[in-house]
């Protein structure tokens, strides 16, 4: 598959994931908490594609979800970019991971990403982010993303099949 083909697949995957999140996953709440699909997308992109692709995917899905959130436009994009990059870097340098490590990393990175989102959002003047409920949100969303990480990792592998001679 050509590089352009891989980017088209990735774009389609991101758009589909965004629409699914808006129409389906945001309604599947446990204790009032929905899965953080966009964050899981950024993290799994980093795990499968490395830091650069993680950052690009995080930025793109972050901008997409920012269109629908009342917080400042660009906040999710900023955090998901960093998260996709950081997880990709860790995977490349430290984990070189087995699938179960990737699953656990997705859950941990989800909880961490939400904490950073809340703290940074409050610093930028957004209200009601760092509240008592935050830890419930982190726990439930992490558990949700733990489950979702497996299909998402598979879909990223489909979007970016290892090309001949490509180191990633």
């Amino acid at each position, binding site marked *: 598959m050509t590089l352009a083909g891989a980017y088209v697949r990735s774009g389609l995957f991101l*758009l589909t994931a*965004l*629409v*699914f*999140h*808006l*129409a*389906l996953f*945001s*309604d*599947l*709440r*446990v204790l*009032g*908490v*929905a899965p*953080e699909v966009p964050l899981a997308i950024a993290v799994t992109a980093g795990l499968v594609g*490395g*830091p*650069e692709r993680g*950052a*690009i995917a995080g*930025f793109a899905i*972050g*901008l*997409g*979800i920012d*269109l*629908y*959130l*009342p*917080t*400042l*436009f*660009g*906040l999710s*994009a*900023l955090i998901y*970019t*960093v998260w996709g*990059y950081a997880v*990709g870097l860790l995977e490349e340098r430290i984990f070189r991971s087995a699938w179960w490590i990737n699953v656990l990393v997705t859950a941990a990175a989800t909880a961490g990403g*939400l904490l950073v*989102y*809340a703290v940074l*959002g409050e610093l*930028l*003047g957004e*209200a*009601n*982010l760092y509240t008592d409920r935050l830890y419930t*949100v982190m726990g439930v*969303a992490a558990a949700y993303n733990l489950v979702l990480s497996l299909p998402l990792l598979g879909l990223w592998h489909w979007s970016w099949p290892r090309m001949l001679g490509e*180191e990633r």
Partner: protein
Amino acid sequence: MATGTRTGRSRFTLIFLLLTSATLLTLDARDFEPLQRTEETLSDLISPLRSGADRVFEPVGDAWAGVTGYDELESENEVLRQELQKLEGQQILDSDAVIRLESLLDVLGLPYVQDIPNVVGEVLTANVGNFDRYSVQINRGAEDGIRNGMPVVTRGGLIGRIDGDPGLGHSRVTLLTDPGFEVGVLVVGTEDVALASGGGQGEPLMVTKGLEIDTEVDIGDEVVTSGVDRSRYPPGIPIGTVTDIDFDEARLLQLLTVAPSANTDSLSFVTVLLYDPLEEGS
């Protein structure tokens, strides 16, 4: 060498994306209009896909809500059963078909809206993230005459206001449960204009400013919008009823707890009042 080049390129990409995000954040914080128009356009582009997917997945969401919110459903059923019994009693009294039709129209109407033009909108999705519990999106926007700050009501009363510039065919409503939501209110029968603010999801509103200590207020009194000069809400929209009264001796004020009259938990349709206080004033 190849790894070094790749690392350099990915660092460059990271810095570029971070700078872009920071620029967008800054522009949005300054209400940069071209950016807001771009956001609206992008959102409008995704809108048809989302609406289609909403329709497809609606039964799944409903089934999930039925499973996870079983206890809530039970208590809601109980309330509905009681209401049904009341209505059945009423039906016996008003057996004439014309009278029944009139009462149905009365239920559908919003008596306090009077002659204010309004638009009925459907709630697209309650919220899409875990940090936006105090807002909903509706399928009406600028092309329906909706503007930033317009009041949003249901039959129960005020539920919020339009937040930010709406898109062409959609807009965001900030709910009155938002702790940052403030509205000028009047306890029916008094003349003190006070300020009520949201208390959080599932919590009552609080009136902490403006109500003098010697003003006569009782538990159960109704609270409505004050509609004072330049208020963004017309007067007389129901807010709720007083459930608790406390006193701030230092500031010589009464502090009220107000149970909202409108339910914001399971909204399907809402009415946006196309009310512009400046036009009304002129």
